[in-house]
C-alpha cells in the first residue's frame, strides 16, 4: 500500500499555491541492486489534480521524475476551504488518492 501524499495548499490572492509530495521509488529500470540485478522500472505515469471535483491538471510522467516526486501548481479562482484531490497511478497499476483543503496563507 502506497504511503499517503503530503499536500499543502495556501491561498495567495485568489490563487491557491499547491505543493504535493508523493512517496514513490520512481525506478528508472537502469539501476542495479546490491546483487547486481537490474531493478525493474516502477514509476508514476499519471497524476490528476482536482479542484472542487473539477480536473485542473492532468499530467503524464516518465521514469525521469525524481524519487519521491514533488509537484507544484497554482490554481486560479480558489477560496479558503476549497477541496483538492490528487490521484496518481503507476506503471504497475498501483494507485493512490489523497485530499486536502485550501488554507489561508
Amino acid at each position, binding site marked *: 500500500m502506497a504511503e499517503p501524499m503530503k499536500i499543502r495548499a495556501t491561498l495567495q490572492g485568489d*490563487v491557491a499555491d499547491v505543493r504535493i509530495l508523493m512517496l514513490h521509488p520512481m525506478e*528508472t529500470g*537502469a*539501476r*542495479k541492486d546490491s546483487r547486481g540485478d537490474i531493478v525493474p522500472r516502477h514509476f508514476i*505515469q*499519471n497524476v*490528476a*489534480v482536482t*479542484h472542487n471535483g*473539477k*480536473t*485542473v*491538471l*492532468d*499530467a*503524464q*510522467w*516518465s*521514469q*525521469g*521524475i*525524481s*524519487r519521491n*516526486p*514533488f*509537484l*507544484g*501548481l*497554482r*490554481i*486560479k*479562482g480558489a477560496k479558503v476551504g476549497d477541496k483538492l484531490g490528487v*490521484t496518481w*497511478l503507476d506503471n504497475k497499476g498501483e*494507485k493512490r*488518492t489523497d485530499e486536502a483543503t485550501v488554507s489561508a496563507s
Partner: protein
Amino acid sequence: MIDLSRRTVLKRAGAFGVLTMGLVTGLAKSSNAMAAQWNEVGFESKVMADALKALGAGNPVESRDIAITAPDIAENGAVVPVAVTSKILNTQQISIIAEKNPRPLMATFDVSSGSEGYISTRIKMGETSNVWAVVKADGKFFAAKKEIKITVGGCG
C-alpha cells in the same frame, strides 16, 4: 473526461449489443478515475526530435514568454528542481524535455481549465544538458531552453 469516455463506452456497448457489454465495461473499469493516457511513443523516444514529433510539436517556435526556473549547476543529477512559467495566452500544455537523457521526455502537464501556466517538479539528469520547456497554446507550440550543468549524474 471520465464522463465523456464512459459515455462513449456505454454508447458503443449499446450499439454492439449485450455481448460486448461485459468486455467494454471491463475496459471502462480498468481506466476509471483517470483516463490514463500515456504518450508511450513520446516517453520511449531516445532522441528529442522524436519526442517532439510524438507531442505533435515538430518545430516549436522559441518564445521569451516561457521562463524556466532551475539551477545553473545542479550538484546532484538525481534531484534537479525545474519550474516552468508560461505567460502565453491560453497555455494548454507544458512538457519538460532533458535533451541528453536516455529518454528525453520527462513529463507532460495538461494545465488548461483553472490552473495557471505554471508547473514545478524535480527531474533526474544523467549529464549536463539543455532542458526544454515546450508549451502548447491555442494548438501552436512554443519552446524555451536552459542549460543545466550536472556535477554527479543521477540516472542509474
